[in-house]
């Protein structure tokens, strides 16, 4: 079959032709073309009826956790602050991850039937532990801004991650405007909790000396918090927003 004919029939089958006269005439005069048309229609029906593949909730949580860890990797992000301080975050993060995974596994109702996926998390965490042991002196970093300073009552905490040093940014000016707009209360973050709720939870949990780095929405909402004082020996902690209870803390 000529290339032009195939393109014409395929386009006719998917309904993308403005003028179908030539395609219809071709189909009437060519048996091979009719077979091709039926074949294209059949494949289109099969493909268009398939829903997109999706990650499980556990896979999404693992993806988020691994990204959070990786984005503090010193080999890909500019380090800031004293090395020992950064290392303490890694160690704390690992403890928290192990604790959170344990808690979530229970809360998400993962029984023995999910052992394969649970095993995957454990294995990944174990990889991270190996990483921190090997590269502890240049551990992942976190450059967190004070939470929600100057923001209005409805604004979620402002958090900052260390960005890669990559020279002038085409979007830098736009980014600055967005930052100003956010500080002017034009930002909307409907999925995040209010500052009052967050402050209330920090107070309830006895963590008023901590700042919020991130809010995670998993089976429920969690706050990831760390000390305001960078010299503090307290470490990264998760708080469950529903109960304002510390999910796991390493003292």
């Amino acid at each position: 079959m000529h290339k032009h004919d195939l393109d014409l029939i395929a386009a006719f089958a998917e309904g993308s032709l403005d003028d179908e006269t030539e395609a219809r005439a071709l189909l009437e005069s060519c048996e091979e073309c009719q077979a091709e048309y039926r074949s294209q229609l059949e494949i289109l029906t099969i493909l268009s009826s398939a829903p997109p593949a999706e990650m499980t909730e556990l896979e999404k949580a693992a993806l988020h956790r691994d990204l959070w860890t990786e984005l503090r990797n010193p080999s890909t992000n500019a380090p800031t602050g004293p090395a020992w301080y950064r290392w303490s975050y890694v160690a704390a993060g690992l403890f928290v991850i192990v604790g959170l995974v344990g808690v979530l596994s229970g809360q998400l109702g993962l029984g023995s039937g999910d052992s394969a996926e649970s095993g995957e998390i454990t294995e990944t965490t174990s990889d991270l532990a190996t990483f921190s042991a090997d590269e502890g002196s240049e551990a992942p970093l976190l450059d967190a801004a004070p939470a929600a300073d100057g923001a209005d009552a409805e604004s979620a905490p402002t958090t900052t991650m260390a960005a890669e040093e990559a020279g002038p940014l085409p979007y830098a000016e736009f980014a600055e405007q967005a930052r100003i707009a956010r500080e002017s209360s034009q930002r909307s973050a409907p999925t995040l909790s209010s500052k009052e709720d967050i402050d209330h939870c920090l107070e309830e949990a006895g963590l008023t000396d901590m700042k919020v780095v991130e809010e995670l929405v998993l089976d429920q909402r969690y706050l990831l918090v760390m000390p305001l004082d960078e010299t503090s020996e307290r470490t990264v902690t998760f708080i469950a927003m529903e109960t304002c209870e510390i999910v796991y803390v390493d003292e």
Partner: protein
Amino acid sequence: MISPGNEAALIARVVSGDRGAFDTVMSAHQDRVFSVCLRILGDRERALDATQDTFLTVFRKAGQFEGRSAVGTWIYRIAVNVCYDQIRRAKRRPSVPIPDHVDPSDPAAEAAIESAALRPEIELALSALPADFRNAVVLSDLEGLSLPQVAEVLEIPIGTVKSRVFRGRRLLALQLGNQNTS
């Protein structure tokens, strides 16, 4: 659903270091990125790795996004390139044969089949297509991107996209025909 204007503003906030904005971008696109990666790579674990690598790149390269295309298109282009890299790396390693059956007692395999939601014979036929054709068919027919979007993601002319999609479908039909007769 995030509007295009808001998406561009979100990327700007990611550049300014706003972690919440990055989470929002990720939440909006993670399922589709995973879906694209799964269909291109044909393996759930590798697709999860590729999804993670994609969003790492999105975060690190956010400052280079110029707003000339939709954020989603830009992210899918990154995802496809990440998948290409994975395929290149895999070619240098011993290959893993595609299983011809699924153990029903294996929850991971069961979950993978359920999530992929493609009949096994379609998955197999898709994996047998040349990469260029498969990627065009995956983006166009399975992920529902328009031809101009596919052209942007794959960085090829629209005419080439059409050609690859049409021929990809044809090869897919032939593959399925061969499976039925064998």
